C-alpha cells in the first residue's frame, strides 16, 4: 500500500497545534515512515495539491478564506480539524462578543476601514465544510493526535472521551478547584486532556469544548454548594465558549 499523502493547512490561529506535531520529535520521524507529507507551509518548501488527508488548523475569520477551505475539502478524502480554533472556533470567537466595527477601530484606529482588515464572525471548520475527525484542545496533545492518526491509518474509529474533565481530575486525585474557592469548568467540559490544567493548580477553562449533553443541573448544584452563581460560571465560559451551540 502506498503511503497516504498528508497536507497541513493553517487559517487564523497561533500555529501552536502544528508545533505539537513538531514536538513529537522522534515519534514524528517514525510517523513519517507511514505517511507522506506533501504540503506543510510552516515546515517545508515543497507543495503539492494532491493529498489524501487534509489537516486543518485555525478558524475561518474572513469570507475570502471559505473558498480555499472548500477546495481543500474537495481534494481530500479525509479532513481533520486540528485544535480548538478549528474544532470549536477557540479563543478567536471572543471577538464575536463585540461589534465587529468596534473591534477593528479598537485595534487599527483610523485605518479600520481598509478592505484587507475585513473580518467576519468566526467559524469553526465544521461550520464551513464536513469534518471527519476532531483533535480537541488548545493546544492539541501530540499523543492524542498520533493516536487518532494511527486509528485512521488502521481503519479504526478513535475513542474520544464522552465524559467531563472532572472524571479524569478525580482519577488523578487532585483536590477540587472549588475547595479553594476557584471556578472551574471541569463539570461540563470534554475530558481527554488528563485534567492537565487542574493538575497544574489552574482551573479548566474549556479548551476541549463542551461534553455532549452536559449535566447542567449538576453544574448548577456545584455552584450553589460553593456559593457561586451561574453568572460567575458564564464569565469563565467566555474564553472558549463564546457563541457555541451550548449555553447555560
Amino acid at each position, binding site marked *: 500500500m502506498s503511503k497516504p499523502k498528508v497536507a497541513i493547512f493553517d487559517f487564523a490561529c497561533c*500555529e501552536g497545534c502544528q508545533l505539537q506535531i*513538531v514536538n513529537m520529535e522522534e515519534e514524528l520521524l517514525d510517523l*513519517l515512515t507511514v505517511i507522506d507529507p506533501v504540503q506543510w507551509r510552516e515546515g517545508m518548501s515543497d507543495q503539492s495539491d494532491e493529498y489524501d488527508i487534509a489537516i486543518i488548523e485555525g478558524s475561518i475569520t474572513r469570507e475570502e478564506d471559505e473558498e480555499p477551505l472548500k477546495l481543500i475539502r474537495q481534494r481530500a478524502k479525509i479532513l481533520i480539524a486540528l485544535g480548538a480554533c478549528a474544532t470549536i472556533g477557540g479563543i478567536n470567537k471572543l471577538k464575536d462578543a463585540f461589534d465587529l466595527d468596534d473591534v477593528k477601530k*479598537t485595534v487599527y484606529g483610523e485605518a479600520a476601514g481598509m478592505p484587507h482588515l475585513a473580518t467576519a464572525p468566526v467559524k469553526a471548520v465544521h461550520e464551513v465544510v464536513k469534518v471527519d475527525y476532531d483533535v480537541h484542545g488548545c493546544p492539541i496533545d501530540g499523543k492524542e493526535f498520533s493516536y487518532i492518526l494511527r486509528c485512521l491509518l488502521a481503519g479504526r474509529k478513535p475513542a474520544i472521551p464522552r465524559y467531563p474533565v472532572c472524571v479524569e481530575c478525580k482519577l488523578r486525585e487532585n483536590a477540587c478547584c472549588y475547595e479553594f474557592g476557584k471556578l472551574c469548568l471541569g463539570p461540563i467540559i470534554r475530558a481527554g486532556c488528563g485534567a*492537565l490544567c487542574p493538575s497544574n493548580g489552574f482551573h479548566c477553562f474549556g479548551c476541549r469544548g463542551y461534553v455532549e449533553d452536559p449535566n447542567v443541573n449538576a453544574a448548577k448544584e456545584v455552584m450553589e454548594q460553593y456559593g457561586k452563581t451561574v453568572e460567575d460560571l458564564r464569565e469563565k465560559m467566555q474564553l472558549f465558549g463564546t457563541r457555541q451551540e451550548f449555553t447555560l
Partner: protein
Amino acid sequence: MSRTIDINVHHVTRVEGHGNIVVRAKDGKILKNEWQVPEAPRFFEAMVRGKSYEDIQTIVSRICGICSVTHSLAAIKAIEDAMGIEVSEQTDKLRILAHYGEQIESHSLHVGYLVAPDLLGQKSVVPLASSHPDVVKAVIAVHRLGNTMMEKLSGRKTHPVRLVPGGFAKLPSADDLLDLRGMLEKAIPPAQAVAATVAGLLDKIPDFDRDTEYIALVKPPTYPFYHGQIGSTDTDELVPVQEFERVINEYMTPQSTAKWTRWHRDAYAVGALARFNLNADHLLPLAVETAKQFGLKKGCCNPYWNSIAQIVEIVQVIERSIQLIDERLKAGIEPERAEVTPRAGTGTGCVEAPRGILFHKYSFDETGHCTGANISIPTNQNHGNIQKDFESLVPSILDREQDDIRLLMEMLVRAYDPCISCSTHYLDVEFV
C-alpha cells in the same frame, strides 16, 4: 537585451504565519520590491476588554504558539505593574527559567528545522533526517530540553498554565529542578555540535551588511531577556519600559499601508542579533567561546547572522539556567501562593521574545477587569527593517538568476524568524 524579473512568493514557507515577497524589475530598473503580510488579523487587543485580570494571560498566550510563555509573562508583568504587586525572588527566577526554556525551544526550532535546510540545500528538515541524522538528533535533543523546561516550570510545552499574576499556580519541586539540571548539562554537547555544524556552513550564509539600529532590553552586567530598560545601538539613553510608546513610534509610510516602527532612523531591528549587539559584553564563558567560533562580534549588521546569534544565545541560556537552578536548589523551594488584590490602574510588561522585544500594556478598572490593551510585537517592529533590507539587497543582486534572488530574499525573511501570527498590528501592503 531586455530582462524581466518577476518574483511572486505567495506565502513564504518555513516561517510562522503568512508573508509574501513581490519583486518586479525590467532592464535593471526595480519597479516593485515589497515584503507583504496577508495574515488574517485576530484582534486580541479588542478581545481582552471586559475580561478579568485572572484570564488575560490565558487569552494572550494564544497570540503565538511558539512564544506563548513570553506573551504570558509580558501580560503578567503588566498586570503586576498595574496592580502594584511585587513578586518573590523565587517567583522571579523560576519565571526566568521557564522563559529560557522558550528561548531554547524557539531558537532550536528556527535554526534546526527552518534555517538548516537552506544551508544544507534541502527544502525541509525531512530529508535531513536521513542525510544528516546526527545533526537532526542534536537539534531534537536541544529542542526537547527547551520543551521540558517549559513543561516542568509552566505546566506544559505550549500555552503555560502555572504562570499567573502574583506567582505560580503550582511550583516545581526540587527534584524537577535537579532533573532539569541534568538535562541542561547533557544538552551542552549537542548544542555545541549544532554550533560546529553551522560554523562549517558559514560560506552558505549570504554576505550582506546594512548599517542598522538595533533595539533590545539592557541591564548591565547581565544578558537580559526578562528585566531591564530599552536600549538602542544608536544611543546611550536607556528608556524605562513604561515609556515604550516613545521608542516604537508606530507610523504610516507613503509607499505602503503598513504600520511600521522607528526610533532614531526609518526602521530598527529586534531579536537575537539586536540583543547580542547590545549585551555581548555580558555573555557567559561558553557563549563567548561559541560567538568566537563563528567570528561573531558586536556591531554585526548582517541580518542573516541573526540565526548565528540565536545559536550563541542557546548556549548562553543553558549556561545561565544551570547557575539559576543551583541558586534555587541552595535556597530551597519555599511554598508560596500567588495572591492578588485587584485595583484600578495601567501597567506595562516588557520581555524579550525569542524574536525580539515585546511590549504589553493594559488598563484595569477597580474590579480588575480590563478596559484597554496595547500590544507591540517584535515581528511588527522588524517588518519595516525587512523592507529596508530588501531595498538595499535587491539592487546589489539584480544581475543574478531569478531563483537565486528569490532564495536570498526568502532566506532573509526567515533569518528574522518572523512570527506573523503575532503581528496583531500589521497592516497589509497588497494582496497578490
